[in-house]
């Protein structure tokens, strides 16, 4: 199957690590993809609050481009790794399906620029593609450095399975857990999988956001996780970079490695750290390296 890859803004900037690791993993697994040509911002969550119809045009343009660039394929599968992009593209499709008038307006607008939107593109999350299309069995065959002894807390964030649970359960998603198990890790059973990390409020109203990300890190630590695996650039950033702030605010002593699930999978697939963007992380995942070398945990 051939996929079209829609990076979105984050994966070209703060989430560059996510892009590098995802593409490396897909290369190693021989997943056939190409980047969407001439893509634009999905509009994220902010634009919808201002003018939803215009926001939908913005998102729908990417879907129409995908249809155009995949017109010779039987199916249009568009991979959207960023949680916000993934949710916004799904929301756009659903909204246009339910509101024929808006759909007509959006289709007409896109026609002006020579694009044809039908809504036939399938918006796919990389977790869905890796586990449900590619399959755990195939992945296991390609694991060269299993994540033995590593306890991973899978963290999906809000938008991956909510409000649209297209590939997993809303309350207790398990796709990432399955993938991490395939990579040889132990997974932690916890109830924080889809709790909000505080999102953009860490930058604006920290009093609200910090407790939210704190409980996630705190619970992961309490359950003796060595690493938190994330699937969203903002989640990764919030959980990784504010641990010092959390510690001073909550008088705690937290330290945990926070990585993209693609990085963990990449390590298990034997991809060299640089290609997985390990060097770009703000904090060195010392625990992870130590355990993989067969040593003791650096921090507990």
């Amino acid at each position: 199957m051939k996929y079209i890859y829609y990076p979105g803004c984050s994966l070209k900037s703060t989430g560059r690590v996510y892009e590098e690791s995802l593409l490396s993993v897909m290369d190693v697994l021989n997943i056939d993809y190409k980047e969407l040509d001439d893509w634009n911002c999905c509009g994220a969550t902010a634009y919808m609050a201002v003018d939803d119809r215009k926001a939908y045009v913005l998102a729908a343009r990417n879907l129409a481009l995908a249809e155009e660039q995949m017109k010779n394929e039987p199916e249009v599968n568009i991979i959207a790794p960023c949680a916000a992009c993934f949710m916004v593209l799904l929301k756009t499709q659903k909204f246009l399906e339910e509101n024929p008038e808006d759909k007509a307006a959006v289709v007409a607008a896109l026609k002006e620029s020579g694009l044809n939107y039908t809504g036939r593109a399938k918006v796919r999350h990389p977790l869905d593609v890796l586990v449900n299309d590619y399959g755990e069995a195939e992945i296991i065959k390609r694991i060269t450095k299993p994540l033995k002894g590593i306890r991973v807390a899978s963290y999906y964030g809000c938008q991956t399975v909510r409000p649209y649970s297209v590939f997993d359960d809303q309350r207790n998603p398990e796709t990432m857990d399955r993938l991490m198990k395939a990579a040889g890790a132990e997974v932690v059973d916890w109830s924080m999988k889809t709790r909000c990390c505080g999102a953009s409020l860490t930058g604006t109203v920290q009093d609200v956001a910090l407790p939210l990300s704190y409980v996630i890190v705190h619970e992961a630590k309490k359950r003796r996780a060595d690493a938190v695996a994330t699937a969203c650039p903002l989640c990764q950033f919030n959980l990784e970079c504010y641990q010092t702030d959390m510690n001073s605010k909550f008088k705690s002593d937290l330290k945990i490695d926070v990585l993209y699930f693609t990085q963990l999978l990449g390590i298990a697939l034997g991809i060299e750290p640089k290609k997985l963007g390990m060097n770009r992380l703000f904090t060195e995942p010392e625990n992870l390296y130590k355990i993989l070398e067969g040593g003791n945990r650096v921090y507990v």
Partner: protein
Amino acid sequence: MSENNIKMNGNGTHKSAGTPKIGFYVCHCGHNIASQVDVEDVQKFAAGLPGVTISRDYKYMCSDPGQELIQKDIKELGLNRIVVASCSPLLHEHTFRKAAEKAGLNPYFFHMVNIRENVSWVHDNRESATKKAKDLTRAAIQRVFFHKPLEKKSVPINPDVLIVGGGIAGITAALTIANAGKHVYLVEREPTIGGHMAMFDKTFPTLDCAACILTPKMSSVKAHPNITLWTYSEVEKVEGFVGNYKVQVKRKPRYVIEELCVGCMECIDACIYKEAKYPDEFNQKLSKRKPIYIPFPQATPQVVLFDPETCIDFKSHRCKKTCIESCDRKAIDLKQVPEYKDINVGTVILSTGFKTYNAELSPQYGYGKYPNVYTSLEIERLVNASGPTSGEIVTRDGIKPKSVGIIHCVGSRDQKAHKWCSKVCCMYSLKLAHLIKEHTDAEVYNFYIDMRTPGKGYEEFYDKLMTEGVHFVRGRVAEVSDWALVPEEENKLTIRVEDTMVGMVRRIPVDMVVLAVGLEPREDAGDMRRLFNISCSNEGWFLERHPKLAPVNTFTDGIFIAGACQGPKDIPDSVAQAGAAAAEVLSLISAGSIELEPNTAFITEDNCSGCKSCIPICPYTAISYNEGTKKAYINEALCKGCGTCVAACPSGSITQNLFDDEEIFSEIDGLLKFAGIELEETEAEHA
């Protein structure tokens, strides 16, 4: 039963009852009909129709003066056909037929027009409603021209009764009927009778001990000379109709001969498994049992049974069979096979009860995920002195809880689960709150949407609980989780809820969560319904004939329902319904026979070509072929009056009484009489 017991009416020998003199009566039904239908207009319209001798409108036709009006007209004007336009025939057809009969007219010369349920209640345009009422009236008046006098058909009632389900409802009904001297077969699926009530510790609001009031009744059932008790049995087949049902009951093998076992339980001690290791269903899997067991100490009958799924001998045939050795009465028979019993009964009461909502389907409450989240039924067993902990309340972690949260409406009043209120949960939650408080002195929180305590002494019980220091938080709980926001929540279950009284979101950490699960129909209620040919509501509860006036009757004569199989009910309501169902059964039995609609079919031999196409169509094998005459013949005793053969007969030689072809054709014609002309009028208007 034999066909001789049915009074036969003549086969195709109806005589015309002279020139029709029709009396037409249209009912106002107070404002129910008159507000939407111009009753006077309908009355005037009918007066002008051919054959109508008298046309009247009256406030309440079903009232005594209304009926007397008809009777007077029959006598004074010599009416020989009556049409009443009022409510549904399912409600009052019988009333008016009786009235006509009293005045000396054959009751089947009556026909009813439904202008309430079918017209005034469902339309809001007076003009078109009146038009529809007139069309229906014309159809009925044309129809009665063809009515024939019919003889009533009655069947005798077999006085034996089948009761399915041995919970408190089934037990009560069985004892009432048996005490009246009639024989009852009580069939129960589980190894013991008692139902859900046997699992409870106390009953609300009086807090009397459930076992103390139930077990004497269970023993009376077992000892009663008029009751045949078949536990661990299920109804397999049902045939026949009111007065004469043929039922097959499957007695599942217990691998213990019931008549020989005295319940000494020595075999249980002797079992090769020294430790009980299989989950005990009666204790909601909170304790263990052996492969040979008795559900609970007061089980009725006091007979042990084997679970072939877990018994070594059934799995490997290599057990030492110490149980058999231990039984000096030789009651154990590991080769027992299912036994099928065929019985004849006249009436049936279904009291199959309910099941509780599967709390795992509301994942936000963490049942099945967090060990210290319990269902209310599990707590019932925990607080029960004869339960798995002898009445001591401890969590699965073995600690005595210092704080307990009871979440109401789990699976009830929930758009994502069941929309209905389960009726009993508020009260049993209050009861459990009291018992938990009494047993543990813990802080007990009730999280409720609304407190519903209608019932004698119920609201007073609620008042009492408030003075006992139980906390009440109004709001539907958002979630139960095991993560901590503050140190006080560490290692606790935190209940997050919007307290709508104070208008804020609260997080309350507790040691134990109790989910007040709602009541729902049993999974196989649909199979039961088909077996007994009754209806279910959309939700799956057995459907009563009328929600107010026939709450224990079903649409199938002779089949009654009692208890929570009809909808959520507490013990007093179930017992009251069981009494009502028993009274209905006894009233049928003492009447001795029941009148049936004479709507059977018959064959006009002269027209029958002997093609046999009707024979395989009849689901009751009522039609046979006479090799001598080369004609088909309908056994009227077996005919149920569906009319399927009538529609299938190519030569039109089959007639169905009350629904014969000319009656229906005249009805069609009456409905549409001026359809063509009206079209012309419409065209003219727009020309």
